């Protein structure tokens, strides 16, 4: 990892932490406050790609573990990892990696804006919603003994908000790739 990659990841971690500190933003059309930290995780993957985005989220988990109150609501410390919802937190890491991996492969500079936004949306959906919620539900179900199907029922309430965040992450990532492209591009095109 070059020094630039390290700095980009660390700056992104600072952004994710900041998104947890600022007051939740209300969206105009639904009365649900958006705590933006999981949005930050999806953005890490879509803006920086798998490796640097994953490192940014890993750094966030390190900050939590070493006792800094960096999660939304001032949470932090090892107790967070002992919580029954720790699966979602650790899932952030895999969410960012999967989102980044898919973004690098789906999104091409030559595509139209709509194509890029859709590709980012699918990547954020796969990582930030499918992977993160799957890990969260599995851990919650196993650790509490309520079983995975019942944990999934409790999880459903949080899915619409995260789908919306995936959409915001996709639109933001598309704007960033136009203004300041950082995402590594992979795929057949280079060959």
């Amino acid at each position: 990892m070059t020094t630039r990659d390290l700095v980009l990841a660390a700056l992104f971690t600072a952004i994710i932490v900041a998104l947890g500190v600022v007051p939740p933003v209300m969206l105009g059309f639904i009365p649900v406050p958006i705590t933006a930290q999981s949005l930050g995780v999806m953005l890490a993957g879509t803006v920086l790609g798998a490796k640097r985005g994953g490192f940014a989220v890993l750094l966030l988990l390190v900050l939590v573990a070493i006792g800094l109150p960096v999660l939304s609501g001032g949470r932090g410390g090892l107790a967070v990892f002992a919580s029954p919802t720790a699966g979602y937190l650790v899932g952030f890491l895999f969410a960012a990696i999967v989102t980044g991996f898919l973004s690098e492969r789906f999104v091409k500079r030559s595509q139209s804006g709509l194509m890029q936004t859709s590709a980012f949306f699918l990547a954020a959906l796969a990582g930030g919603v499918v992977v993160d919620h799957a890990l969260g539900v599995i851990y919650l179900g196993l650790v509490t003994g309520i079983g995975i199907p019942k944990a999934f029922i409790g999880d459903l309430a949080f899915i619409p908000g995260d789908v919306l965040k995936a959409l915001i992450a996709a639109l933001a990532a598309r704007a960033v790739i136009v203004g300041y492209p950082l995402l590594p591009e992979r795929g057949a095109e280079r060959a």
Partner: protein
Amino acid sequence: MKALYVEGGTFLHLMSPRLKLIGLCLSSLALFMIYQPVPLAFAAIASAMLYLSLRIGWRQSWVRMRMLGLTILVVALFTLVFNGWDEAAAVLFRLTALALAAAAVTATTTTGDFIDELTAAAYPLERLGLVRAADLGLAVGLVIRFLPEVLSRYDAIRDAHHARGFKPKPLTIAVPLLILTLKNADEIAAAIDARGIRRQK
């Protein structure tokens, strides 16, 4: 940013960080192998006594533990509805014991000690060529250094919205925040390399 460490000279403060972390891992493993509520209740009481012996204070404890306490209560209620009293009590006591023990370790270990332990744990990975152990401390320092700048940039962008009569929206805040922050990366990286902090090339 203020860490969750609490000054003090208790037994836990003086214990080696590595021993505390290993102890926490082992006790969490043990807690998940016990299923009867009664021994788990004793474990919860022991953890509570450990936590109380640190004298963190009720107000500070409330701020630290309320979200976690709420999560544990919701999960315990959920378990009660679906699986009955026995399992609900076991879940409540197990998670409480775990949360209090972990909070006690966090409150008695400084950020610097944690980074030292992490760096030591990362050395085997460095030998495999996966990461550089020293990068971890550097990266943590960078985050703590630049967080206030990101926050003031956020305030500036929000004020710019208000000045133009726009309502701040997640998207119109996120994009300038990302681009303005990440554009600094080149300069910061150059400054780090100029000082030879990572000792490469």
